[in-house]
């Protein structure tokens, strides 16, 4: 386990170094430069050159990269080009909002998805099962931005129950959470159902039945626990997806989170902000994938790490 962790951490570090170089270089590729963002469009070339020198953009890219990394390590994250805000402050505020939305979505996904999958499998071909299947197919088929448009139309424009955008009261959280959780709920439900059906036909279930355990004890305690393993492993992988969808959902509902900030920074060419939050999200995805692997091992003691 220790050796496995060490090797995975090493690989993670390599991935992060590659990813940071890729992000750094690709943002330097961008047409135009930061002086076009902050300075007056009519500014003279000498002024632009001075500005670039001030930001260190006149140095070769690899030098800029090392300067950036050493600043990062010292905790100097820089400031936004657009409004001069400290990136560290942005991180604290927007990160908190993203965390709230993300946790809400993960909670809803599993609180609805797992029980629905268990019931659908236990009462196979019943009305509940058919309902669950329909939810699963629709949840995976409706793109989240279209679902958002429909929900905003229904709950904001027609019924006036919920605000169409904004932050940070619970009522602002309802629609973004539903939209962000929709696809994950569908996938979790389908996986849980398939995994349950696979487990139900196994020998240990027959043994439990022969022992005279009640059907709900067998389904709820024994089968569901065994069936959870593949669902957990996918849950970890899904964190990456969730982060991807966060960019779209937060932007639509103008929920001030990291996703909204990143999309906004990319559109406005606020490079320091785009760079830091790109790296932050990449880092989160990589760490989430590692944690998912470890959680898999805890859930299933048969898996040994070599």
């Amino acid at each position: 386990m220790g050796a496995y962790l060490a090797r995975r951490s090493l690989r993670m570090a390599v991935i992060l170094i590659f990813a940071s170089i890729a992000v750094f270089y690709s943002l330097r590729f961008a047409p135009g430069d930061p002086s076009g963002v902050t300075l007056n469009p009519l500014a003279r070339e000498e002024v632009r050159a001075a500005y670039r020198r001030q930001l260190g953009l006149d140095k070769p890219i690899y030098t800029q990269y090392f300067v950036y990394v050493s600043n990062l390590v010292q905790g100097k994250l820089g400031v936004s080009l657009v409004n001069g805000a400290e990136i560290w402050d942005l991180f604290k505020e927007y990160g908190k909002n993203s965390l709230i939305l993300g946790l809400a979505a993960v909670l809803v996904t599993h609180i609805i998805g797992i029980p629905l999958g268990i019931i659908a499998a236990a009462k196979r071909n019943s009305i509940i099962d058919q309902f669950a299947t329909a939810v699963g197919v629709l949840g995976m088929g409706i793109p989240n931005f279209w679902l958002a448009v429909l929900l905003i139309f229904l709950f904001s424009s027609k019924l006036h129950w919920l605000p169409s955008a904004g932050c940070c009261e619970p009522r602002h959280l309802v629609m973004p959470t539903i939209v962000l959780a929709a696809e994950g709920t569908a996938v979790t439900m389908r996986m849980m159902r398939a995994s349950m059906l696979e487990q139900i036909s196994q020998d240990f279930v027959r043994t439990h039945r022969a022992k005279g355990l009640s059907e709900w004890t067998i389904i709820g305690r024994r089968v569901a626990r065994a069936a959870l393993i593949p669902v957990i492993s996918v849950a970890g992988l899904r964190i990456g997806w969730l982060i991807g969808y966060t960019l779209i959902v937060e932007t639509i509902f103008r929920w001030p989170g990291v996703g909204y900030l990143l999309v906004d920074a990319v559109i406005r060419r606020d490079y320091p902000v785009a760079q830091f939050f790109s790296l932050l999200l990449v880092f989160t995805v990589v760490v989430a994938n590692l944690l998912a692997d470890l959680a898999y091992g805890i859930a299933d003691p048969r898996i040994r790490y070599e």
Partner: protein
Amino acid sequence: MSNRDTLASEPSKTAGALARHWANEEIVALRPGPGRLQSAWRALSKNKLTLAGCIIALIYILLGLFGPVLAPHDYARQDLMATFLKPGSPGHLLGTDNYGRDILSRLVVAIRVSLSIGFGITAISMIVGTLAGAIAGYYRGWADTIISGIIELTWGFPLILIAVILTGAFGPGLKAIVLAVGLINWAGFARIVRAEVISLREREFVQAAHAIGVSDGRILARHILPNCLAPALVMASNYVALAIIVEAGLSFLGMGAQPPLPSLGTMIAEGKNYMLLDHWVSTIPGVTIVIIVLALNLLGDGLRDILDPRLRRA
């Protein structure tokens, strides 16, 4: 199999008849069975939902190919005297949008954009991924180390995040999306093909081909890759749907297709402010994308059932 079943239900048959019958069955079994494609088609036509998915996908492909040529109007032409015409208006089958542009003409071009990205990039990444996976799995060694390393780097990364970062580099437009889909999705194909090849190369039929001196290239092309096709195809239909959703999503945010080029995402975004009175500007492209994504998902699920022998149960 069915012969044996009918026999079992007729206990009056003698042991000799039984033996003769089984002997016949052996001969029957030696005859070449229906081809892979033929049996897949037979299974497909039995599975109604999968067939529906297949037909809908074909209709979309035809719409994307020929729709823009046959479109009644120029997709970019505005007519501010004829905005928000309802679907079914004379000359505008699906109505007009907020600039008086013909929705049908825009829709078929948007379908072409979606499908070009969905099918086009997925086809390329499937070819690249399959080759890379086959080389890594068949030759192992340093080639495997390098390819697996790159797979590890890219696989499992959220497509949308990469596309947004690349939009930062290239500016808004379809280029960043095409590049993101290509960069990420090949690894998915490479990953499953590699795993499949590793298990196949130890099998007897591959060893036998090796022993009689068949070249590596021929073994890969004739004996190994055909066996990897099933999982790759299942993955492909899901990846096409994913690419279509990502393209539409980023276009919805204004980071994808740039005006005047229509995309399902931009059409939904433009119409969303008029949902209360003129909902069709948004609902028509919205329903269009839901149908194609559902069809591709059904197709993928069905293909998995049909092509994966492990799931093929009596």
